[in-house]
């Protein structure tokens, strides 16, 4: 009964519904885009009415928000933060910089395509995106979660070798704990 496919489906629907309506965000303020997070969270745009709330630590968070460019130095921290988060977890790439490098496309010390290093579920483009765009991004994420399609974390686990290879190319002295889910 418990392992029955249909009952699992019902459980999934309920769980996805609760995940969709309760998104705890760890805003990793890496780039200039982070300045758009406070207006999104406070009175004017009030993301809390959608269940979007700030989380204090990676352990409690569901969504890792990469706000803008990532320098090679912060990449290491971001990877550790991502691996400390608990499943199910999602990544939102925020701003043009995470998509193709944006205005830092020829910079020597930022990474260009975030998706090569971490599995991104939703991109929000713009330099920098307005709070409306951020809310639209969250809406897209909610839609993906409800459909069960926001499975970046599974992709990361399955292709860990590939992601690790890319990460180690950027970070030469790799002294990090093993990823153990």
């Amino acid at each position, binding site marked *: 009964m418990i392992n029955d496919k249909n009952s699992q489906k019902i459980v999934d629907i309920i769980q996805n519904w609760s995940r969709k309506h309760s998104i705890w965000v760890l805003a990793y303020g890496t780039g200039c885009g982070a300045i758009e997070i406070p207006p999104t969270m406070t*009175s004017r745009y*009030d993301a809390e*009415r959608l269940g979007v709330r700030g989380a204090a630590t990676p*352990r409690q968070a569901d969504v890792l928000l990469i706000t803008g460019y990532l320098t090679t130095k912060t990449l290491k921290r971001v990877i550790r933060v991502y691996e400390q988060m608990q499943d199910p977890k999602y990544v939102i790439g925020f701003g043009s910089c995470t998509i193709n490098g944006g205005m830092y496309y020829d910079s020597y010390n930022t990474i260009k395509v975030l998706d090569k290093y971490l599995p991104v579920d939703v991109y929000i483009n713009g330099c920098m995106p307005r709070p409306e765009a951020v809310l639209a991004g969250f809406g897209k994420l909610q839609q993906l979660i409800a459909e069960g399609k926001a499975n970046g974390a599974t992709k990361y686990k399955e292709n860990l070798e590939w992601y690790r290879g890319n990460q180690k190319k950027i970070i030469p002295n790799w002294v990090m704990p093993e990823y153990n889910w």
Partner: protein
Amino acid sequence: MESIWYKILGAIITVIVAFIVGLTYMGLSRKITARIQNRKGPPFYQNFIDALKLASKTSAIHHGFMQHIGPAFMMITSIMSVLVVPVLTGDQWFSNLNFKGDLIFLLYIMVFGPLGMALGAGQTGNPNSAIGVTRGLSQMVGFEIPWVMALVALMMQYKTASIVDLINIQQEQGVWLMFSSPFAFIAAVLAMLGMFRYSPFDIVGAPTELASGPVSENGGKYLFTLMSSNSIFAFAKLTLYVDLFLGGASNIVELLIKTFAIYLIPMLYGTVSPRYRTEQAIKYFWGWPLFFGFLALLYAAIF
């Protein structure tokens, strides 16, 4: 023999009711805070969704044995304290498992959980947790003293350490203890501000400063346990205040109105106050609350 089964069944139902009411109150507090800040705010049942989500997350965190049972300590404390507080007076189901001297028992059991949680948080090795624990214990030293003084004053004045006796006294006299021993009430309410850990006394959790303090390494199911234990504990404390100072409640509607009225005090005070520093918080508790505690003791000794 019959009645003990009623009581046990009633106690089990009480825990469930406490969970639901506590979570709803927290949700309402989020809503009211949002309205005060001119936002729309989350729906009042947001906390139930959060709880469901937290319970369905994986928790692959391991730092050691105490870290796993720290949240359980909190849960045990909450349930034990809700069990000895009589919820509805004069009801054979919900007078709960209280006994003579349960006030003294409550005084002890209420600090047991935070201590267990402190051990658990210490083992995670997270510096934020360690700072949070030291802050929490210092704050506890602050508010426990006026709180104990208020209770001791009540015990001295009415020569009993049983909550049911105190309720009966209020019903016989027809006056709430809030009016017949006002200083104890003031001291207890001021101590409550610290007990509920809303701002300005949210120095333990302090999300923007300490990354939520002792719970910073607890995600998923641990956080769910802590959240539900918090809500049960909040209900237990509110009911205790209603029993002690507001003459108890004889039906559920009266209980909800009275507990919510008490709950509004720390919440509304919190929404308009910024966070204190640790030493400011302790100084606060060792100021006026302590003064009113002394007055309550004097009052009890003289009358």
